[in-house]
């Protein structure tokens, strides 16, 4: 019977259906009006929520802040993560590789809240770093309850995703290409610049896209390390639900942020495909 294989799809379809239904009701709500004093909503369909969100200075600044911070976090993750991925891919020292992998896996497996509080202990005004600076007679810095703290927390969260994604791409670059380049007179640094980096660009872009998506949807770290001063999309959506109690408007806001994120990720995806064509496969 031809029907049988499709039966296996049933659980997945059910889950997808539920997800789609939830999403659909969320979209529907964004076109309705809140009934004051309740969480209920009613028709008729209106664009008022969208107009209101688009006109809101908070929503606009949040969108810009979110994109700016996510871009910054992605760049920092890439700068910090690339060397780690390279060590994992190429180091001949098993200890070096184990150390890096251990550090990443610990980050990966420890819970977000635990890590956020750990960062508070390290970065706080009376935290480890500032106590050390003070003991040395140096000026202290505000490292948390601001963007710095959020960026540190999120970059730490993103690193394993970035490194493990890039690692796969780096491992696909044959070692003989690097040896060949050195044989032709390139120093280690120029081998990296002329061979490894260009060939890793498709992998780098996919690792960066993943990090960027993670940064865009960051909620926990901005919430716990931002001290209420850092407005990223998820936090603002969450806070608006609590303060406005206006579900249709929040739905419209979330929908607009989602569209923005999808556009940004779509652009990165296009870049990824283009770079893959340009760099890895020659002109095909």
């Amino acid at each position, binding site marked *: 019977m031809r029907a049988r294989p499709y039966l296996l799809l049933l659980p997945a379809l059910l889950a997808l259906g539920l997800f789609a239904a939830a999403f659909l009701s969320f979209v529907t709500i964004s076109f309705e009006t809140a009934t004051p004093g309740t969480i209920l909503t009613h028709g008729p369909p209106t664009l008022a929520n969208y107009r209101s969100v688009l006109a809101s200075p908070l929503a606009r600044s949040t969108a810009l802040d979110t994109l700016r911070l996510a871009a910054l976090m992605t760049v920092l993750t890439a700068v910090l993560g690339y060397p780690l991925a390279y060590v994992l891919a190429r180091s001949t020292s098993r200890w070096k590789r184990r150390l890096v992998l251990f550090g990443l896996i610990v980050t990966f497996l420890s819970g977000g809240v635990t890590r956020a509080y750990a960062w508070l202990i390290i970065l706080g005004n009376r935290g480890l770093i500032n106590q050390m600076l003070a003991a040395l007679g140096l000026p202290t810095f505000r490292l948390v309850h601001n963007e710095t703290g959020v960026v540190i927390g999120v970059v730490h969260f993103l690193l394993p995703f970035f490194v493990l994604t890039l690692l796969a791409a780096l491992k696909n670059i044959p070692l003989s290409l690097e040896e060949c380049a*050195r044989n032709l007179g390139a120093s280690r640094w*120029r081998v990296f610049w002329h061979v490894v980096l*260009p060939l890793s660009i498709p992998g780098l872009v996919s690792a960066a896209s993943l990090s960027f998506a993670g940064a865009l949807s960051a909620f926990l770290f901005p919430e716990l390390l931002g001290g209420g001063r850092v407005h990223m999309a998820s936090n603002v959506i969450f806070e608006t639900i609590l303060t406005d109690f206006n579900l249709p408007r929040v739905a419209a806001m979330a929908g607009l942020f989602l569209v923005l994120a999808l556009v940004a990720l779509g652009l990165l995806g296009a870049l990824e495909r283009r770079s893959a064509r340009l760099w890895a496969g020659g002109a095909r």
Partner: protein
Amino acid sequence: MGADQPRGCKLEVEGLAKSYGGVAAIADVTLAVPPGALITLLGPSGCGKTTLMRSIAGFVVPDRGRIAVDGRDLLALPPERRSTAMLFQNYSLFPHMTVEANVGFGLRMRGLRRAEAAPRIADALRLTRIAELAGRYPGQLSGGQQQRVALARALVTRPDILLLDEPFGALDQNLREQVQIELRKLQQSLGITTLVVTHDQLEALTLSDLVAVMNAGRIEQIAPPVEIYDRPATAFVARFMGVENLLPVALGSRDGATVRASAGKLEATVSLPREAGPSLLAVRADAVQLQDAAQSGAVSARISFATNRGPSALYEVTTDDGQTLQASEERRGAALRAVGTKVGVRLRDESCCLVKA
């Protein structure tokens, strides 16, 4: 490559050793390659030939020993400062660069300006007959074309030593023979000292001025190809060069530089062994002469297996005193001798030699 073609350099390796975790990859290797010569490192996988080549290129740091080019020590230099050019087994073309950029890479890394590099790139492309491919990417080339690009890229830097790692392994048989001859001609006309790693004895014989047969990290014999083929020094070399029969022998009376060697009833007059110690008689199948039975002076035997190898027939014969050996014979259009037929066996003196057991 015009007036300033690479002059041949002398390559010397002395007492080189490298072990990995207590296992010797190469043990005490010494060899000298005269300027402009092509030497082949021949041996089965794991014999240390690749480790030796990679030591010369600088990718393996030997435990001890010395490598020198024209008397200058090489080991102190990192790979990028050695003037060796290596052709990698899989060609290792940079996939993100055009053929032209690939070939020009070594010149760019050596700081040549575009105007200086361009004519040299063009020369190298012409020399390897791929000028029309300059703008293509490696992904658009056939295996043979890729190999030419890799060769052009290696030659354009005018290296002192050219290193070729299994250079024809990825080519199909017909193309391989043609390219081998072409490469040999090119190498001779450039006069560039070249070291080739291969496990294919025919390739080694076709290409080389010198063949070094390696086994378990050591050089078993280093000699011109004809000598390696005709007079292998050891049983290992003989077997690797395709000698079918290695017979235990008793040595009889000496006469000047020759000695009478007898393997059972079979006898041959051969040159004295180069070294003392137990010897085997190496007899190629085509040195075993088969005669119709009952001729005098031949050892009587019986055909125990027969098969045909194109122009020749290959037999297994068993002598009356119980020795089994392989013999080949040109067919000249005749049918194979039947299994069970009685024959007389005789060894051709000039095609037999004593090897170290």
